[in-house]
């Protein structure tokens, strides 16, 4: 095997082979991300829409979910895999924007009535903010590339949150009374939805970016998702008491919470319908077989009006009991399926990481507390004490460069240096007293104190000469 300079084309080919192939990957996270992006876009536009409606003196008709749906349509068109030429792209986008705008505009009952009456002028003058639906489609179209997801979400959060102040302020200034309450209810829910979905989408987008650059690591992602989800939940949980404090109608909050639940329950009921129809068909088939005189009981649908005098018939009770059982069975089946999926996923992760990774929670040992330093004796500069007198003498000597004590000098080495210049033992005695006081911790007698003062006086006298 002979080696030389590597061929650059070969290097490029190897790099291309190593390049992560994350763009074509379709898992739960990659499906969730565009949904959240559309929700964030729709929620922001819903706040703007509510403000615009308040400015026109009308309550908002369209909510964040409708606008998110339109943004999602725009995104789907931008990320399509067919008709990729520019003309098709532009034509399709324009058509979708017009359709989206018209649909949102058409949602207003007054518009429909005016159109039916042939009064197009009134129709066009009504519910003009509805054309924000067209903006939603166009906004969704900006998410054409998955590579830009992280940048887009970063920009949306960076500028989108402060920019929400503008429609909020505009809506408050434009409306009052019941109209203001309607505006607040709609804009508040949209704001919370925007914050939660935008934060989560940003986290997911960055996670996807990281995954593409460093490989897939499911355990890391799960913790990340939990944290991001926790933040989103935190925003929502803080939002509820905040809304109550701010006077947002409770109905708006309950609508936000109950709405998705209602959709879930209706979906389950719709799923149950084929079963009920099948049971009904089976029962009708049993009719001719049954002996004469045996008739199936008549089931009455429940009356939503509460009437205490009305007593439910046994067949009705049995019917709804069966319905409830079916409903519970469906819930249990869904739960079982989710549990099974989760268990399989955990098993796969455990197999993947078997022998590769060990995790443990280890509290670092407590650092041994360093004993506090002994309290320092207050340093006196009182020239009436031996130490103070020595310091005062040093200050006097500082005026002469030859006699100045260097910072690195001990009192003894300083004395040796200046012994030839200074006459008499005054400084040496002062230094001895200083060292006894400061370093040895000795309490000097009153006589020594008086001597120190007189030695200082002698040094002063010498210095004056």
């Amino acid at each position, binding site marked *: 095997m002979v080696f030389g300079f590597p061929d650059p084309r070969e290097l490029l080919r190897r790099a291309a082979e*190593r390049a992560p192939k994350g763009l074509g990957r379709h898992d739960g996270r990659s499906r969730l991300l565009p949904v959240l992006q559309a929700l964030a876009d729709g929620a922001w536009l819903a706040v703007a829409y509510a403000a615009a409606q308040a400015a026109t003196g009308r309550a908002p008709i369209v909510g964040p979910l409708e606008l998110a749906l339109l943004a999602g349509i725009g995104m789907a068109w931008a990320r399509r895999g067919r008709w990729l030429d520019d003309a098709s792209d532009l034509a399709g986008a324009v058509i979708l924007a017009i359709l989206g705008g018209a649909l949102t505009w058409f949602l207003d009952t007054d518009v429909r009535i005016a159109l039916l009456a042939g009064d197009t002028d009134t129709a066009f003058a009504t519910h003009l903010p509805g054309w924000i639906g067209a903006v939603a489609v166009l906004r969704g179209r900006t998410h054409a590339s998955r590579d830009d997801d992280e940048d887009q979400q970063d920009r949306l959060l960076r500028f989108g949150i402060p920019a929400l102040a503008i429609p*909020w302020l505009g809506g*408050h200034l434009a409306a009052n009374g019941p109209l203001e309450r309607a505006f607040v209810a709609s804009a508040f829910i949209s704001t919370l939805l925007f914050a939660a979905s935008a934060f989560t989408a940003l986290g997911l987008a960055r996670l996807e970016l990281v995954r593409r650059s460093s490989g897939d690591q499911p355990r890391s992602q799960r913790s990340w998702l939990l944290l991001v989800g926790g933040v989103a939940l935190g925003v929502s949980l803080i939002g509820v008491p905040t809304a109550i404090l701010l006077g947002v109608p409770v109905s708006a909050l309950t609508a936000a919470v109950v709405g998705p639940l209602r959709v879930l329950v209706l979906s389950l009921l719709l799923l149950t319908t084929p079963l009920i129809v099948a049971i009904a068909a089976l029962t009708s088939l049993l009719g001719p077989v049954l002996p004469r005189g045996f008739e199936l009981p008549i089931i009455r649908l429940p009356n939503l009006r509460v009437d205490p005098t009305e007593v439910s018939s046994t067949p009705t009770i049995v019917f709804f009991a069966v319905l409830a059982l079916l409903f519970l069975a469906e819930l249990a089946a869904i739960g079982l399926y989710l549990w099974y999926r989760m268990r399989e996923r955990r098993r796969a992760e455990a197999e993947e990481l078997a*022998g590769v990774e060990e995790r443990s929670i280890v*509290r670092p040992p407590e650092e041994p507390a360093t004993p506090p330093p002994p309290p320092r004796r207050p340093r006196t500069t009182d020239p009436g004490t031996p130490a103070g007198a020595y310091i005062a003498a040093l200050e006097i000597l500082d005026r002469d460069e030859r006699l100045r004590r260097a910072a690195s000098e001990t009192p003894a080495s300083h004395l040796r240096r200046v012994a030839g210049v200074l006459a008499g033992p005054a400084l040496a005695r002062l230094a001895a007293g200083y060292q006894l006081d400061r370093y040895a911790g000795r309490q000097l007698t009153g006589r020594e104190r008086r001597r120190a003062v007189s030695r200082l006086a002698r040094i002063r006298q010498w210095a004056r000469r």
Partner: protein
Amino acid sequence: MSGWLALAAVMAVVGAVAGAPGLLVVAGITAGYATLTRLWSRYGARSVTYERQLGSGRAVAGDTVTLDVTIWNRKPLPLPWIAADDLLTEGLVVRERPDLDHADERQHRRILRNTWALTWYERVVRHFHLDDLRRGWYELGPAHLRIRDVFGRDAAEGEVEPRATLTVVPRPVPVRHLPGDRSPLGERRAPRSLVADPALFSGVRPFQAGDSLRRVHWRATARLGSTVSRRFEPARGRTVVIALDVQTLEDVPHWEMSYDDDAFEGLCVTAASLARHYLGDAALVGVAAASFTGTPQRVAWLAPRAGTGQLARVGELLARVGPVSSMPYAQLLAWLARRLPAGATVVALTARDPRGVSPILRRLGRGGFAVEAIRVGPADRIPGAGFPVRTAQLAPNWREADGLRIS
């Protein structure tokens, strides 16, 4: 982030003045975002420990060495995303990460990239295996730590400087002579000698009756409190230096960076095997090669010594030499003549035709050195060299050979 907090404060004030509760909500979200981000940028990098632990700092080519990477978040603040880019010298094969990216900022380095999400006080140990190690000197580190906040924004980063090194020495194999070959490699000598060389001081031993007073080590005696005598190495008559020719292609200038990888590895295995053989024969063995070993020196040089530690030193030097020559082989042999004591044996180990350096080898022979050339390759006769030329074969190849056949 302080800008965000200021903006949030402004919005809160405007909201309070205008009686717009929505503005307070927006201000709260803005402030929450700024605070959360600041939390990780300020405290994220604190009390994070990153360590790497090699199963062994030395290995033989072909071995597998474990590498444990440990990250420990020693604080209550969880880290949603922490990445460590650890630089590894090119050539290491990580079993769990077959494809490692190239490092942009350092040549011949690859990045072992790990990412984790750590809860409070969580410690994670990842076990890697460095498989099928090739001869060489490898460095692991430094590691670059990056921490991101819960929104994925870069919050903090730092460098973990301590590095680890791994020396992979060539695998020595037993040297086998062909049947009928009675001429041993190099010059045979008695393993022990009655005569000690006073220039080779090797330590002290307790004084024994009969020791000359001139041999007493007085300073050591004073220090130890008992009389000790100097001890010397026996006078040796055999010094062998393996002069390794790192060039493996014929008719190629020494500065050209082309080489035959298999031939070069075969040379290293042969050199290690010969060194072990000579050391087992109680010779002083040294190695010289015209190759850079991570220092500015142009010659990789290991002075001849005996003892068990020398084999490890030979292996370490052979681990560091590369196939790119720093000077012509003939120049290395001339350089050796100035270094070696008279009478030393020079073993010219090459994968090329040794007749290319026959003038300098003959001159060495005339200068009092014992010269022997060993060519690693096919056992062809090489007539007209003017000195003994042997051939060494690693069959079937240098990776799987179980012996070095000298003919």
